């Protein structure tokens, strides 16, 4: 459930969803926002104290002026984790959130017990460029995000309200500022991924049309000891399209026996 009180981080009121008991587990969502990850968070709350933040600028408050690139968010969240007194926790990041998680892990991993990168941005893979999502309409984005078109249709059947349209455009502006150039990656992150010593699980949809599955192998090659699960018949949102396979991989990545 959403926190009543925001967490003050460098003067920004960070909103977050939190539920469950057990070791802490943080989920950093992708560019679409945290809402689509709430069902996953609910599920994980059986095993974990789950924290799912809303990225700066993704809600009512505007993004702070210093929030220009993904490394800025890495420092922001490192500070937020200290403010929330999180220790020895699992960090799960999807897409943009995976990129933020990797940036955190190369900087300061002392509080991390496990790292799970899901369909993550942040690197550039020769021969496997990301698709240009900024040229997609909403319909096209949904079509590309799933292996099974039924999922896209289900979402398309629910057109945006005016409020959702406004929020979506606001998030898109935040995201573009963060990832436009270099597009969806940070060469310096790629250079230092080998510093990550946290046990790392990489999870990818075999049919990801935004960040091709070749990314997964590249992340695995760069992070010492990382393990990899490629999920079949699965696009960019594995926790929605293949929730069971995804959860199994996530739990084992976090050291929990199913």
């Amino acid at each position, binding site marked *: 459930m959403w926190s009543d009180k925001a967490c003050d981080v460098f003067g920004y009121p960070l909103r977050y969803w939190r539920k469950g008991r057990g070791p802490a587990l943080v989920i950093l969502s992708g560019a679409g926002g945290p809402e689509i990850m709430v069902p996953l968070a609910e599920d994980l709350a059986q095993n974990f104290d789950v924290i799912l933040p809303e990225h700066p600028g993704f809600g009512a408050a505007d993004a702070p002026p210093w929030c220009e690139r993904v490394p800025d968010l890495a420092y922001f969240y490192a500070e937020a984790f200290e403010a929330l007194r999180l220790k020895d926790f699992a960090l799960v990041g999807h897409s943009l959130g995976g990129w933020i998680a990797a940036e955190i892990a190369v900087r300061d991993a002392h509080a991390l017990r496990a790292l799970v990168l899901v369909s993550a941005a942040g690197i550039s893979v020769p021969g496997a460029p990301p698709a240009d999502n900024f*040229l997609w309409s909403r319909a096209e984005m949904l079509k590309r995000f799933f292996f099974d078109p039924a999922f896209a249709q289900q979402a398309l059947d629910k057109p945006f309200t005016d409020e959702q349209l406004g929020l979506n*455009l606001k998030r898109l*502006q935040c995201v*573009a*500022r963060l990832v*436009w*150039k270099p*597009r969806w990656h940070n060469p310096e992150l790629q250079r230092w991924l080998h510093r990550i010593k946290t046990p790392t699980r990489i999870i990818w949809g075999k049919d990801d049309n935004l960040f091709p599955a070749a990314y997964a192998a590249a992340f695995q090659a760069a992070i010492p000891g990382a393990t990899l699960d490629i999920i079949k018949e699965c696009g960019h949102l594995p926790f929605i399209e293949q929730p069971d396979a995804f959860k199994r991989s996530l739990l084992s990545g976090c050291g929990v026996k199913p």
Partner: protein
Amino acid sequence: MKFYMFHFMPYLHAPLDFRAKGRDTLWMLYPHDYFDPAKCHALYNRYLGEMELADSLGYDGVCVNEHHQTPHSLMPAPNVMAGAVSARIKNGKILILGRALPLVDNPLAVAEEWAMLDNLTAGRIITGMVRGIGIEYHASGVNPGESVGRYYEAHDLIKQAWTRPGPFRFDGKYYQYAYVNPFPRPFQSPHPPIWIPSGGNPDTIVWAAAPDRKYTYVQFFNAPYESVKKTLLSYRDAAESHGYDAKPDQLAWAVPTYVADTDEQAINQARPHIEALFNDFMAFSKELLLPPGYTNLAAAIAISKATPVGGRGGGRTTIEDLLEKGIVHIGSAATVRARLEKARGEIGLGHVLALLQFGTLPADLTRRNIELYASDVVQPLRAKYPD
């Protein structure tokens, strides 16, 4: 009133049937394998000849423009074209409207190029500073969320480079130089005129009208007359709130124009060509035209709910739509004069930038248009409004 000939220099052999091939634009995403360099060469010569004709007929100047990766314009580097124009145009001004400053990583080079052109022409250039339309941020890779910041900073750098004794240091957020000391210096003192072409952004208008700038504001193409009026009057309001009266010299309108002997003849002759401009040469998806961050959020929401002009949703825009909204001046000389006199009376318009070649308009009609506009519109209006 002053009158200028504006040119987009379109590659008019572009495949205008692109929709039949499942495409929704000729810009950037369309494979340009249809390009024929011999045709491009011929078009450059034709268009430069049209500018020479305008100059010989006493136009106050000719205008070049910048767009990228599109047959809509053969001028991705407008200062290169201005260099070519400067060898041919001996009387009028050369207006570079505009150079998209945020797209370059070294705006000092733009200050240098303009200083060269200013000296080549003995001070006959007018510079235009623009952000470029949204699609240029896809085409250049520059972050659209930094467009405004880069624009103002590049402007500051260029103006300082022209006016401050050098060498000096420039520490901007986007541009940093240990040494700014360009050579040659501009011909005009303190610097070449700066004009601000825009689609009507209120922030830009207030900024341009500030007392230490007083830049001529150019309302660009595809705006209905009522919105041109509103925008230019808002410049006058901004000037008033700054404590002075804006002069006609500060107010300009760029408008597609075609003159023939009668209204009917003008409409018949212009129809396929003006409709090609608005429906085909300027067709884009919203995503292509508006990368996130190019506008503020309120504008992005408003635009995402609106139906764009040309090619999408509501079918093709017709010449009748364009005339009704006052987006174009097409008709007999008397009709076109009446529209301009209305704008003069209601807005205090000082500069008219007439787009006398548009879309696929062929050479013979373009030349006739340039001649008729000069004799039957420019000369009488200039006599009536000498300022």
